[in-house]
């Protein structure tokens, strides 16, 4: 059995979050080398890296650092390829940063980005799209196996963190908009099938957002910057945004009624804090609150605030509204660039399983930092051995608190503390006379 397979076999092991780092260290390095040997011929960017860094084998974690891809690698395409419909370029780019053999993709007659995403999917290369802070979304390729791993890990993570069994007995509420992104959809379905049923679950009825529609918005922004957008296009965009907003409000009103009607059921709520807060406010406005909901309500909440401005007590407000106890909240930390979510324990830290290496780096992302003295603030970097469609090594934009010691909850293994900050959000005090036309674009786009 290969080292990779040995570690991935632990996905089904109940003790997977209680393994001392030193017990698996050697096996992890062996597994990284197996992945490296396989991927170097599949991912041109990795091949380049290996040549320029003159690294052909990883003997210790330090050797891995020059081989990691910064999160920016997945947004390194040229946006004008999208605007100009140069799908051959896009396909070639996907093939440069992932294991996808994009030469198998027929790009003839592709009508737009959604079409392109479908065409890539037809050869087993599923693209997800994340909106970044800089406005240029990452485009991340997943294989079939990545979708399976990611969706299953979410289910097992929830059970590990909250003790809630995957017995299909809950009514699940999807309180955020759905996306037409294969990975997100698979993850949603896995949750529904594990903890509820398709028939007994509720999904906010708004049209799913596609990768193409996100990108169209970004493209408009570029056209405004270039001076190529007409005033009528801008006006139309604002009308569309207003219509979407109003559709959302109608849908939320419907969701409130459903929630109130199902208040004597065992619930699992899912969504982001911003939409959950709005729902909670509306439920209160109808005169319902914690005493009306069962004491075993569970919550899965993804992501941070994503720029939404909420009052400081938004968590308490949401939890009190639905009678949610802390131990039945599933928080996790992950990023689109990885497969594996890291569930939060009752001690408040995020736990990494043994098939993911935690690699705390200095701020520039160039060197491993010394963790022997205990917890340390560092730039988060990871190697996710479960990744199949792309390289497992990723440097994030997050400042994390990393620890390899035993967690307060009693479990062994690497953990990440609750305070996670994007480096991009640190310090807004920069003023410089050099800049680009991006600073001249006003409005929602």
């Amino acid at each position, binding site marked *: 059995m290969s080292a990779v397979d040995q570690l991935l076999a632990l996905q089904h092991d109940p003790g997977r979050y209680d393994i001392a780092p030193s017990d698996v260290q050697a096996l992890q390095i062996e597994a990284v080398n197996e992945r490296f040997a396989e991927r170097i011929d599949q991912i*041109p*960017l990795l*091949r*380049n*890296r290996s040549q*320029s860094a003159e690294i052909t084998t990883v003997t210790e974690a330090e050797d891995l650092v020059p081989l990691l*891809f*910064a999160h*920016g*690698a997945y947004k*390194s*395409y*040229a*946006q*004008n390829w999208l605007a100009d419909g140069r799908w051959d*370029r896009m396909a*070639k*780019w996907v093939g*440069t*940063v992932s294991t996808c053999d994009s030469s198998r993709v027929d790009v003839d007659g592709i009508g737009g980005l959604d079409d392109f995403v479908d065409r890539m999917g037809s050869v087993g290369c599923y693209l997800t799209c994340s909106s970044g802070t*800089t406005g240029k979304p990452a485009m991340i390729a997943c294989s079939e196996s990545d979708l399976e791993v990611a969706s299953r890990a979410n289910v097992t993570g929830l059970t590990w963190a909250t003790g809630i069994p995957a017995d299909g007995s809950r009514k699940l509420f999807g309180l955020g908009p759905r996306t037409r992104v294969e990975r997100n959809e698979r993850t949603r379905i896995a949750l529904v099938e594990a903890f509820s049923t398709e028939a007994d679950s509720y999904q906010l009825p708004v049209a799913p957002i596609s990768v193409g529609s996100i990108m169209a918005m970004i493209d408009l922004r570029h056209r405004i*910057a*270039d*001076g190529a957008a007409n005033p009528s296009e801008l006006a139309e965009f604002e009308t569309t945004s207003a219509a979407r907003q109003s559709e959302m409000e109608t849908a939320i009103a419907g969701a409130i009624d459903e929630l109130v009607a199902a208040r004597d059921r065992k619930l699992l709520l899912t969504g982001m804090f911003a939409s959950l807060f709005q729902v909670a406010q509306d439920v209160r406005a109808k005169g319902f609150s914690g005493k009306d909901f069962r004491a075993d309500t569970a919550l899965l909440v993804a992501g941070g605030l994503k720029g939404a401005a909420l009052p400081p007590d938004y968590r308490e407000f949401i939890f009190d509204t639905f009678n949610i106890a802390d131990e039945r909240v599933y928080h996790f930390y992950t990023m689109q660039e990885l497969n594996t979510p890291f569930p939060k324990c009752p001690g408040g830290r995020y736990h990494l399983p043994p098939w993911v290496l935690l690699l705390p780096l200095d701020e*520039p*992302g160039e060197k491993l930092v010394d963790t022997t003295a205990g917890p340390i603030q560092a730039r988060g970097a990871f190697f996710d051995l479960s990744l199949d469609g792309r390289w497992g090594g990723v*440097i994030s934009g997050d400042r994390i608190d990393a620890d390899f010691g035993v967690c307060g909850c009693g479990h062994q293994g690497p953990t990440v503390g609750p305070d996670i900050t994007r480096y991009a959000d640190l*310090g*807004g*005090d*920069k*003023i*410089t*006379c*050099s*800049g*680009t*036309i991006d*600073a*001249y674009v006003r409005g929602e786009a």
Partner: protein
Amino acid sequence: MSTATALAAPFIIRGELIEGNADRHRSRDLGVDFATPAIDLDVLVTPRQQLPPLLDVPLTEIVDFLAETGQRLALDANPHMQRCLDLVAETNPLPRRVVENLYRTAPELLRRDNLWAQVESNFADPAVLDGWVTRTDAAGNTAAIRAFPPRVVHMLAGNAPAGCIASIAQGALVKAVSVFKMASSDPFTTVAVLRTMAEINPKHPVVQSMSAVYWAGGDESVERTIYRPQYFDKIVAWGGGPAIDNVIKYLGPGIQLVSFDPKSSISMIGREAFDSEGILADVAERVAADTCVFNQEACLASRFVFLETADRGQARRFCTQLLARLGVDRTFGSAVAPLPSADIRDEIEVMGAMGDELEVFGRFDGRGMVLLSDEPVEFHPSNKISNVVMVGSLDDAVRHVNVATQTIGMYPYERKTQLRDALASAGGQRVCRVGTANGHVAGGPHDAMYPLARLVHWMGDDDVLGADANPVLPAQL
């Protein structure tokens, strides 16, 4: 960094040095801690009932005082500037030697002829700064006009440590009451310059009109309080970024932003550059000189080169020569500069790995890189990266010029005349001979405006001769 090592960054309020370490801050670029006194908002504001201290001081006297300040700023004889150089070297990403060379330009910046050139190009009749100037219209009405001193906050940029000297001169020339908000990557230079002035004469009205302080850009407790038309007429911002986005929400009737917007600059090189090896070498050196100003941190530093050729072999020769010239030491740039951000490195690396998008000359060693492509790259080249874009004709390059394009360095020089209307129409602000981006003709406009004329409060005292400008209409029958 521990408390013991926080650098002391005192304030200066109308000639009085204010020391203290009540507040600690961290510099944006290098993460160095510095300590400042607590900020007293009341002293930053001059009540409107008080006339500005410089109101009745003749401009000639102000220019004399600035010119003397220039002499006193000579680095070798000025302990404040010497100490400041040590401090800025710790907080600013520019190499110490470059900061030193910038400081050495101070006497030049404050030379009499430079100051007068600014005044005379901004004001048709500079007498409006010294008193009420009468003019008469065609109907014989007369008006007395005065360019009245404004109350100004200057938000200084962090990327040019000598920039504050130009701002101090601007403030003094329009007789403004000025508050200088220093940048976290240089919370020292303005205070050193104002201290030098105060040592000449602490009671001089120029000194009595100026204060320099630091607060973290965007700090609501300061900005929401003082950015009001009751206190200030104008906020002058050198550049863009989150610090400016914060200011915009305080603008409204009576308080305006005079913005030197964030800019980038380009070079346009005609096919004549290939007429001989000697010309090619000269043009490559000139493009490199324009690219490396402040290690490409300056807005006037070239980032894109539009090269008029369809011959890739020719373009490669140019790129090779340009790369060699990027890696040399210059007065205002260093042979080895800090590396670009990881995002930019990723993009260059991936495009390079695709094999047919970007041709990459050089490596990530700080000595500069040249990227040859058919379309401009989408990122903002910085840290000595030049993107050479092949164009069929320089006319084709005009579509890449926009309102963010400041300086356009051109070869051959004669083609400026042919292209300047189209460049202005596209939004460009200045066209110059390639290789001279960092030089200026004294008294020229900046970012498509004459800033001094925009800073003043234009006041009119009208003597309309007609009995009544709004007479009663005859009663309707």
